[in-house]
């Protein structure tokens, strides 16, 4: 199967979106998951509900809110565009933010499970000997890493597949903001079977690779 320029550019845009979205998930999601795992029951429940919200509302609703927040209709959006010079509507970083928001719940859930498995006594001991940050980096991270790798893979796969929210905020501009899912949608709508085939097949193969990686990580975790 061969890919033409438009298909390759969709794959490139998707790779950019996936990389930035996954990075967002790692930074924001790890922090959130850590606090949820370590906080008292009420705070944890509140944080957990907030982190899960994008999972239970339709991605198109997420896209709609983001479009409002970052676009010309809101004061914040006008501030971003005119004063900060940051244009997120119709750009790939905007698509990445949308994909990141939608993928965040999956990252947080998986990472949180990893943190919760750590023996609290180990962490208590660590906290008597080092700063909280050092204790997190030297003790918690090494113990929870398989869960964090799994979380990263799941978030990456989810952000590659994100369609509803990204297409609303980023539009569907070939070569600029058109991701693989958007290009598939476009090809189907335009009756371009070969293109839809090529890109859907690419997604299938990529999905299989991610799943294979995921099960390797999980196996390692089990036999540790």
């Amino acid at each position, binding site marked *: 199967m061969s890919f033409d320029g438009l298909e390759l550019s969709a794959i490139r845009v998707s790779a950019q979106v996936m990389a930035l979205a996954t990075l967002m998930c790692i930074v924001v999601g790890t922090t959130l998951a850590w606090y949820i795992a370590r906080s008292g029951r009420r705070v944890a429940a509140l944080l957990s509900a907030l982190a899960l919200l994008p999972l239970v509302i339709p991605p198109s609703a997420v896209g709609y809110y983001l479009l409002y927040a970052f676009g*010309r209709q809101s004061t914040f959006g006008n501030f971003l565009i005119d004063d900060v010079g940051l244009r997120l509507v*119709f750009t790939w970083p905007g698509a990445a933010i949308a994909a990141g928001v939608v993928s965040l719940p999956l990252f947080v859930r998986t990472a949180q499970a990893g943190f919760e498995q750590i023996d609290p006594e180990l962490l208590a001991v660590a906290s008597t000997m080092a700063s909280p940050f050092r204790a997190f980096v030297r003790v918690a991270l090494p113990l929870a890493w398989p869960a964090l790798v799994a979380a990263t893979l799941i978030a990456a796969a989810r952000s590659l597949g994100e369609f509803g929210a990204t297409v609303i905020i980023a539009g*569907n501009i070939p070569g600029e903001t058109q991701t693989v899912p958007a290009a598939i949608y*476009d090809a189907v*709508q*335009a*009756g371009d079977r070969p293109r839809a085939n090529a890109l859907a097949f690419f997604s299938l193969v990529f999905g299989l690779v991610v799943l294979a990686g995921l099960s390797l990580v999980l196996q390692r975790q089990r036999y540790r």
Partner: protein
Amino acid sequence: MRQFARRLSLPALLPLIAAIALACGANADDGPDPAESLVTPAPGTVSVIEAEPGEAYAGRIRLAAASDLRDALEALRPALEETCQATITPVYGSSGQLKEQILAGAEFGLFLSADAGFPAELDDAGLVVSGGLAEYAVGRLALVTRDGIAPAASIDALIDPVYERVAIANPGHAPYGRAAEAALDSAGILHDIRGRLVFGENVRQAIDYVDTGNADAGIGALALVINADHVLIDAVLHPPITQTGAVVRETGAERTGRCILQYLLNPEGQQALQAFGFEAVAPQ
């Protein structure tokens, strides 16, 4: 199996036969045939009411309509529903998308395309009733600018980088997108502003991008901005956007489809369409 079918067939068919008889009776005796109450077609237009045997009226019809009709069709709907005695459920989209859906078997009684090519494709695929194709109007392009910046006075003004994002409908499957691209090309600025183009899924969305301020300017259907500030784009800059209707075969609502299309061709329909900026099809 065969025995079972034979035993089933007569009792099962009885209500059906009764229903058909009733329906025919209703058509023949009670009240006027909806199509007969129509006035004579406007000069230069085709008549699409000559139905074939086996075609039927339905109390409800799903209509695949190009999104340039979103305002005009809503305005026309009460008259259409009254004349053709059917509840109309319009589904709007780009003509190319709707054509794909009909090819894939979506049940639309009538397809109102923004161009002539997509209905012709359906016809080639054998999906249109005989005599069920008619060009009913010509669409025009209009240029709009978002609030808060200097309005673009003409299509050439789009070369100004102040219009950072210019919205058009997706030329891949939207006739107005193709026309907008052709107009930009004729104006000699397509190459320069290509990097600033953003595509709406259909012409309504392209206009929406400008309405919400997310695109700085846009080229779309006159029919959607007739009551807003706009600049009409010279029709010589692009091939005509010939609005074409196609009555879809074997939907059980073929006569209703013909009736609606015929209404659009009649003087009242033409007048209503022209109020939204559509132009009459030039006589052949």
